[in-house]
């Protein structure tokens, strides 16, 4: 664990100040050719994130100097990174560094975890990654951290208690991991919203798929959705029993369109395990809410294969 995080910190800090800076400075040239959705394959989480951000016009498109930024990974489970139950820590630390280099005042990271939050933060490697990258890890497992807001466009969900860090943030980035999910079928970017609310029981009581789509209509939308598919949990999700449930796919998909990014991720996942778009009910419901499109032909997609 310690060696891991040390190596990780070393890699990220070493690379971020050399390759990351040059990568960032070079992106200004390409900014005119931006895409709506970028999919990258075949690199480390850091390489893929940098490639994706560059193709989306650079981090400055999303993060402005002086802003308070929240990064919302999936840290739901007391599982090691090898189990692919939580977002990749290297991805999170790279993203924090990008935000800070773009001039963000603070970068805060939290999740309303399922397992004990301290164990999740630690086991996932995210606490160490955030600390090394200069971000702040905030607890999210007590009602005192949440405040009720209206969800005017919600059909079943009219109001929800959302984490104060997010309410106070100037912008937030949604960074889920791609996983199979016993109940919601898939958990990607839209389902990751369940980690920003306090009362998840209400979701399950009042049509889970509809509530997932409803919460995504909350007025403060993420400036970017980055789906981590470096290691993917293909079965027994969202927690997983063993590493046999995971597969190393070395992929990352990013888009401002939350429905499109999830649609692309489901189609990508479908190559490993059979998964119909229709089964992931919240996608169609999200489209009805005009949150984005499930028709990937409508948008400009950039596919990058590293190596």
């Amino acid at each position, binding site marked *: 664990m310690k060696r891991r995080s040390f190596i990780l910190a070393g890699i990220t800090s070493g690379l971020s100040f050399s390759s990351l800076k040059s990568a960032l400075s070079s992106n200004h040239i390409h900014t005119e050719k931006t895409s709506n959705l970028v*999919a990258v*394959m075949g690199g480390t989480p850091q390489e893929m994130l940098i490639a994706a951000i560059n193709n989306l016009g650079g981090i400055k498109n999303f993060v402005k100097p002086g802003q308070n930024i929240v990064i919302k990974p999936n840290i739901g489970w*007391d599982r090691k990174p090898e189990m692919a139950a939580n977002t990749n820590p290297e991805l999170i630390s790279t993203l924090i560094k990008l935000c800070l280099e773009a001039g963000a005042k*603070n970068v805060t990271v939290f999740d309303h975890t*399922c*397992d*004990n939050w*301290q*164990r999740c933060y*630690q086991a996932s490697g995210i606490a160490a990654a955030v600390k090394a990258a200069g971000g*702040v*890890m*905030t*607890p999210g497992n*007590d009602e*005192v*951290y949440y405040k009720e807001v209206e969800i005017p466009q919600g059909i079943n969900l009219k109001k929800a208690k959302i984490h104060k860090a997010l309410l106070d943030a100037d912008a937030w980035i949604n960074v889920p991991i791609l996983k199979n*999910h*016993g*109940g*919601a*079928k898939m958990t990607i970017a839209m389902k990751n919203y369940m980690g920003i609310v306090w009362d*998840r*029981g209400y*979701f*399950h*009581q*009042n*049509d*889970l*798929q*509809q509530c997932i789509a409803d919460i995504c209509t909350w007025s403060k939308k993420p400036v970017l959705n980055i789906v981590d598919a470096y290691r993917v949990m*293909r079965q*027994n*999700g969202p*927690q997983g*029993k*063993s*590493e*046999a*449930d*995971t*597969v190393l*796919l070395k*992929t990352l998909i990013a888009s401002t369109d939350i429905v499109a990014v999830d*649609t*692309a991720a489901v*189609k*990508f*996942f*479908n*190559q*490993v395990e059979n998964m*119909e778009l*229709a*089964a992931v*009910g919240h996608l169609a419901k999200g489209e009805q809410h005009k949150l984005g499109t499930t028709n*990937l032909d409508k948008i400009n*997609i950039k*596919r990058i294969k590293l190596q």
Partner: protein
Amino acid sequence: MKLRPLKAIRVLLASIIFLFISYKLLELNSINPYETHVLLRSQFIPALLSASFLWIVFLLALTLLLGRVYCSVLCPLGILQDLFFRLRTWRYRLKSKKAPKLRYIKSNPFIRYSILFITVLTLLLGSTVILTHLDPYSNFARISSNLFKPIIIQANNLVAMLLMKNDNYTLHHISIGYLSIFSLVITLSVFLIIAVIAMMRGRLVCNTVCPVGTFLGIISKNAVIRPIINKSNCTKCGLCETHCKSQCIDSISKKIDASRCVVCMNCIGVCKNNALKYTLPIPATQKIYKQNIQQTKQETQTPSNRRNFIVLAGTIVASSTTKKLFGNTTKIDSQSTHPIMPPSAGNKTDFSYKCTACHACITHCPSQILKPAALQYGIGYILKPYVKFDTGYCNHECKVCIDICPNHALKKISTEEKKLLSIGVAQFKQDACIVYTEETSCGACSEHCPTQAVKMVPYKGHLTIPEIDSSICIGCGGCEYICPVRPERAISVVSAIMQKQAKAPSKEHKEDIKIDDFGF
């Protein structure tokens, strides 16, 4: 006033140990408890119940050599009483009055030995029903957990709130989920009684009620080194007597009741005539020492000290090995009256025998799912921990309760063993399930199931519904905790009468899947 080095040493050692034990019981970070659990096992009853006989022998030898050092230095309840005794002096000082002096009182051997006898007898018969309420360590730990820890948590929350307003998340808010009115009332009553008695009468509790104190007192009567009055020098001024918080120095007849003396060293050094010393009975005092013993023997008319000691030591040691005498005859409880016990408790009979309800597991459980029982599981289970899944569930990788249990009532096992240990079995009522009643997706139970004993299987259309494989269910309660159905949940855990290892979930080989395309 003369320097009193022995007292200074006692106060210093006692303070250090008191602070360490209190810290261990009150610590807020329970995710990675430091390996200081051993401190709790330095206590007499935990050492006895966890069969740490070497330590017991050490404590007995220590008492035989130096007297009841245990009571003055190692016992946190004793030190707590000393704090209250000191408060009394301060209180009077505030009123600019002198505290009424304590004087010698006769011991009450009938009450003392009766309580010890009953405690040992019940222990031999396989029950800690009396010991749970008399053990000084458990009482101190309960006072810490039920009364002091909530105050510390509130203080933490206040500071955490202030820090949070300045974007500082070093501390975090903690909810208090473990408290119960029943346990609070009992503990508060005990605390008040002990505090008041300590303020008025010093170590009266230790010398009347405490079975450990009485037991060690039998040995300390013959301690090699102990406070001794040199009768020829003594002027019966009574100064030492008024300094004794055990009220065991009789300055009129120039005697010290060594069975009640907790060697607090308050008397040592106060004598203006150098007549009182903590020492070996040296030849000059030998005669008086012998007279002393003879007098004590005649007056108290207790059986031979040595015989007494051997019998008691023998019975107590035997009790922890032959406790099944009574245990086996108790009938097996029905499931409704059977608590879900913390992992590695085994069965109810064994567990309630070894647990003295110190609540260390209850306050250290990161998920706060352990609660002190009231009367619902019988008198023998009062204040002992049971599992309730309404605010959390047993974290798969966590075994903090097992690690901290000083009595080894929760037997030491590895994390891998704990991950397969079944403390109960989930039961599913399909006609209450949301997937069945509302025909919408849910799967919260399966999502939380670490072994996938609860698995979502095809139902109608794209819907999936839970199915349980009892053979691999460990009863962690993840499913029960998260089930959104109210008032009665659609899935809940039923206690295991006898905790045992569940079948390991089937092992699958990692498939090497390669993908070259994005698929969209």
